[in-house]
């Protein structure tokens, strides 16, 4: 199929879609008239029944826990796939890298960037841990906190040489984080089964409202997801950096 036929097909499809959208818009209730029962039910139940104050985290790790388990493994498998695709293959040991001109050195990070990076790394990691720990209380949780923690690793790369980054963020540790994080979630589910509850049923004591340990199984799953997301995103970062920067090292 050449470009013209493809564009013509797109134009025809888009026209039909625009028509369907127009019909759908005409029948929509105006924005802000949400009438779905589940959201209101969840909002009414999370505080009295789960002792957590962030309804979104309660939905993710408790009420819809089984779905989030699946989503976590989509993430796990995508990261594995990326690592697998970018692994060093036997037939490409002497391949050419063209990420910079041959007659020029790669510029070292500027002093401003080094200073900013060094100042930001510790607060970023601390902020990430804070976001993870307060997942069931205020906006945040394992997914968001894990990404913030992984951006700490990116800062380490930005301020230094790739060698330092490798030393500061060892691949074995990242692999372990990802694997343990991915394992925690199903382990909690199986533990609740073994204890006589349903899979992922929140059977632990709910703790005091507003405390970091409140919410029963939610903080445990939350921490596992944080490990998994942080390990996964950092691993993606490592495999991409190794793909482009191997030559710089050699």
């Amino acid at each position, binding site marked *: 199929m050449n470009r013209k036929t493809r564009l013509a097909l797109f134009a025809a499809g888009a026209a039909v879609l625009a028509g369907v959208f127009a019909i759908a818009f005409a029948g929509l209730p105006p924005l802000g008239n949400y009438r779905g029962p589940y959201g209101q039910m969840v909002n009414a139940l999370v505080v009295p029944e789960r002792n957590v104050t962030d309804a979104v985290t309660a939905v*993710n790790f408790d009420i*819809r826990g089984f779905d989030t388990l699946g989503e976590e493994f989509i993430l796990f498998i995508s*990261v594995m796939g990326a690592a697998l695709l970018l692994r060093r293959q036997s037939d490409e040991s002497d391949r050419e890298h063209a990420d910079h001109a041959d007659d020029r050195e790669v510029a070292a990070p500027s002093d401003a960037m080094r200073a900013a990076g060094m100042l930001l790394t510790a607060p970023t990691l601390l902020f990430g841990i804070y976001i993870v720990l307060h997942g069931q209380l205020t906006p945040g949780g394992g997914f968001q906190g894990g990404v913030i923690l992984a951006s700490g690793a990116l800062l380490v790369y930005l301020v230094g040489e790739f060698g330092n980054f490798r030393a500061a963020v060892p691949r074995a540790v990242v692999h372990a984080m990802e694997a343990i994080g991915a394992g925690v979630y199903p382990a909690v589910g199986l533990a609740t089964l073994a204890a006589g509850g349903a899979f992922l049923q929140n059977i632990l004591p709910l703790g005091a409202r507003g405390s970091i340990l409140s919410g029963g199984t939610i903080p445990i799953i939350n921490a596992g997801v944080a490990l998994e997301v942080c390990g996964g995103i950092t691993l993606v970062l490592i495999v*991409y950096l190794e793909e482009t920067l191997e030559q710089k090292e050699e």
Partner: protein
Amino acid sequence: MSHFPYGVAAWLFLVGLYGIVTSRNLVHLVISLAVLQSSTYILLLGVGYRTGAVAPIFATIPPSTPAVDPVVQALVLTDIVVEVTVVALILALVVQVHKRHGTIDPDELRKLRD
């Protein structure tokens, strides 16, 4: 104006699709896919919105305060994180394509196949 967010979602969907259809570069194609997918965030958050309601965080407000739907927000949350890694996976595929064929223009790749 009351359907404006849904219109934005539809527009993002179509713009992303147009980018995919007309792409001459696989990296551009993957980013177009990400743009297309971001329409789902707007749609989901738009569906869950209630006029005058607050965010579904009850740390400092009584639980009876009207709040927007937390279910769609939870969906968007996992959607975003999963999308990032899926984009990383597809970009890894693009790197492999470039290694094997020396081009990331979809039309050139089709010529190679024929």
